[in-house]
């Protein structure tokens, strides 16, 4: 039951062991400070995270479904971009 005037915010949570913030959902809030607090209450009730980002949904520019072919299909046949043709020398741990 959110007031239509309240903008939508996208919420990102970094979990205790995670290195990056992961998108978990969205919520309504009148401003950034309240959005952060709402995110705390809605998305971290069960100790899901140690850090939160909120981003105005309007600030996100997304690729559109119509552009999907032009955007992503050309990568499909460039298998040489995957490092699968190289032999990994013995003893290399962090590749």
């Amino acid at each position: 039951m959110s007031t239509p005037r309240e903008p939508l915010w996208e919420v990102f949570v970094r979990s205790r062991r995670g290195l990056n913030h992961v998108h978990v959902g969205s919520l309504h809030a009148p401003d950034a400070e309240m959005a952060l607090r709402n995110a705390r209450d809605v998305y971290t009730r069960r100790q899901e995270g140690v850090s939160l980002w909120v981003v105005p949904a309007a600030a996100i520019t997304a690729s559109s479904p119509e552009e999907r072919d032009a955007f992503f299909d050309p990568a499909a046949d460039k298998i040489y971009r995957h490092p699968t043709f190289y032999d990994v020398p013995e003893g290399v741990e962090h590749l």
Partner: protein
Amino acid sequence: MSTPRPSSSPPLRSSDEQARRDPALTGSHVDYVLGLADDALVSAQRMGWWISRAPQLEEDLALANIGLDLLGQARSLLSHAGEIEGAGRDEDDLAYWRDERDFRNVKLVERPQEDFGVAMARLLVLSTWQSELYAALQRSTDPTLAAIAAKAAKEVAYHHDHARQWVLRLGDGTEESHARMQAALDAEWPWVEELFDESHLDPALVADGVAVAPSSLREPVLRRLEDVVRAATLAVPDVPPRVPGGRAGLHTEHLGRMLAEMQHLTRSHPGATW
């Protein structure tokens, strides 16, 4: 609870010493802890009214979280009161089987809060007072009380922040939100003074270092409250305080009705579990 005791406080009271204590002081100790427990319990129950009624889903969850924090504080405090009393009453006995006159909460928390402005004004008052109280209680010579206070301090810091954010926005919002927030403050303010009343507190408990003198919290609490009220472009209400009495079991007409609802299930089905 295992928060380390501050090194400055006297050594732990042994159970022998506890047993040799003046029984009257033990009674005052129970009453003091029950007062704090009942403040939290009654607030939690009132906060629960908002679940499914908040202006938005996000606020619904926030108020539910706050209510659950308060309920958790109430449970620890009630259990502790039962242990000091030593009559075999547990948290449920104390929450569900005491009548209105045995409740020790301040009257601030027992009245209905079915207006969002009132709910936020009251939460601001309660959380400001609780955060000063729990900060001081962490040095209590009652180690369990000190440990409960240490845990609760973090929770009420968040409650305070939540209430403050709303009071600032509603006060400094539209003409209507400003007027309604002011009306809410005016409605809650007469009940603030009871928080600092010590007419029902045994001075020996303060001397013992168990209790925090309520009057010592008056100045810091009022100063913090007034800072928020002014920042929200609101006026600090100039209203006479209501007569205290909650700590002695003298309540408004509202508590009995609230307890009837809260206690009804347990009393209709004693011992029921699910």
